[in-house]
């Protein structure tokens, strides 16, 4: 009996989908392993768990990412630095090729914000923004790659989506899963979803620009960034160098990167610990020359 229960649990654990849990429990009932009430409880529990950011499909993440980006871009000016932006995209796309998710719905896109503020943002689906102030903090391509790797890591770990209140996701799923809905173009449905969409954009934008992700998610982004830099061939110490310069340049209480990120000393110490565990790629003079030539005068 224990083995049979293990098999059911295996089936359940290998998927997060409530619908599949439903099928599993039905099979278990037919086999006489679970009672109907136990199966119902299992299904209810599974449904509750799956109404999270993980239920947001890639195409929905894309539309959320576009609107979060538009909201960020209403706060920052952009000038068409065509060559510089292409260079930023080349570094970013080189990094994502070494990631677990090299392709997102629209693919990754990178843009320089025309601001002296030292900051960088990542919106869902791979829209990444870096201010001129942040680029000026970088002394070579490896430093800039470290900044991008940290932001890409927020995308890889769905951090912005996690900022959406669970109640909004539940509400959206209830609306789209409702009986008798024939088309998403139905005005009433669109208006209901727009309210949830608007709230979700607000949750994410507030987190990105005001409250920050918090220590745990920033730490996760730093750790993923170190792995990404290591795998792609960039010097992982760039993250430490950028954090040290951030610490020297920014003032406590300023409305920039420091306002939305945990204590820099703690982050530096943690990153150094991870670096001590493995090999470190060297900085390349060739890449530094390319950086200075392309983006060094911003």
């Amino acid at each position, binding site marked *: 009996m224990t083995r049979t229960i293990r098999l059911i649990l295996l089936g359940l654990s290998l998927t997060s989908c409530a619908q*599949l849990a439903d099928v599993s429990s039905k099979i278990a009932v037919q086999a006489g392993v679970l009672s109907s009430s136990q199966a119902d409880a299992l299904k209810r529990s599974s449904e509750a768990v799956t109404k999270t950011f993980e239920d947001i499909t890639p195409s929905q993440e894309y539309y959320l990412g576009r609107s979060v980006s538009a909201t960020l871009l209403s706060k920052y000016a952009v000038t068409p630095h065509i060559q510089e932006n292409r260079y930023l995209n080349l570094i970013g796309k*080189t990094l994502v090729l070494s990631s677990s998710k090299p392709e997102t*719905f629209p693919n990754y896109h990178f843009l320089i914000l025309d601001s002296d503020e030292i900051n960088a943002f990542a919106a869902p689906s791979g829209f990444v923004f870096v201010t001129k102030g942040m680029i000026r903090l970088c002394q070579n391509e490896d430093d800039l790659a470290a900044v991008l790797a940290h932001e890409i890591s927020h995308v890889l770990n769905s951090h912005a989506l996690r900022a959406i209140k669970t109640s909004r996701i539940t509400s959206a799923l209830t609306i789209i899963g409702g009986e008798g809905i024939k088309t998403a173009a139905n005005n009433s449905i669109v208006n209901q979803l727009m309210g949830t969409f608007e709230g979700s954009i607000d949750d994410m934008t507030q987190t990105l620009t005001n409250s920050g992700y918090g220590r745990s998610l920033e730490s996760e982004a730093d750790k993923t960034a170190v792995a990404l830099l290591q795998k792609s061939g960039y010097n992982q110490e760039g993250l430490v160098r950028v954090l040290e310069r951030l610490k020297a340049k920014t003032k406590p209480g300023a409305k920039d990167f420091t306002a939305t990120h945990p204590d820099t000393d703690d982050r530096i110490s943690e990153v150094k610990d991870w670096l001590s565990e493995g090999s470190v790629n060297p900085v390349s003079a060739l890449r530094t020359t390319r950086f200075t030539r392309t983006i060094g005068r911003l």
Partner: protein
Amino acid sequence: MKKKLALFGAALLLSPALGFATSLMVEVQQGQLRSEPTFFSKIITNVGYHNSVTVLEERGPWRLVQFKQQKGWMHISALMSSNVKLNAGLSLGDSISSKDVSLAGKGFTKEVENAFRKQHSELSFAWVDKMEKVKITSSELEKFAAGSDFSTVAR
């Protein structure tokens, strides 16, 4: 014994991770079928969002798939998602697939974005659109990577 076999079968069927699912849907705007399991290989054809492909072989994060009459390699990140896991369970019965299909293309869509934009005329999507138009080709990226001095041995 029969019960155990049935349960084991169910556990396996419910696991797309174990490779028993043979049909997956493309979950990116434009997926690419490539000649080799690498992003720098030749693109055979493009496969649009929500088209179904048949998995023929697995090699790391790459899948050799068939789309219509053509075969090529696609990265798993263009195929796998929580939603696609449902699609992978097509063989489990119509109730699952039809529900999933009914949810596809709903939720936060272009129509919802348009409604949001009407409410927020202060927001400009012009630069978001411009961002998306910046295309980096595989050959550009390969050339950039090749000239990046990544081959230096890690110390």
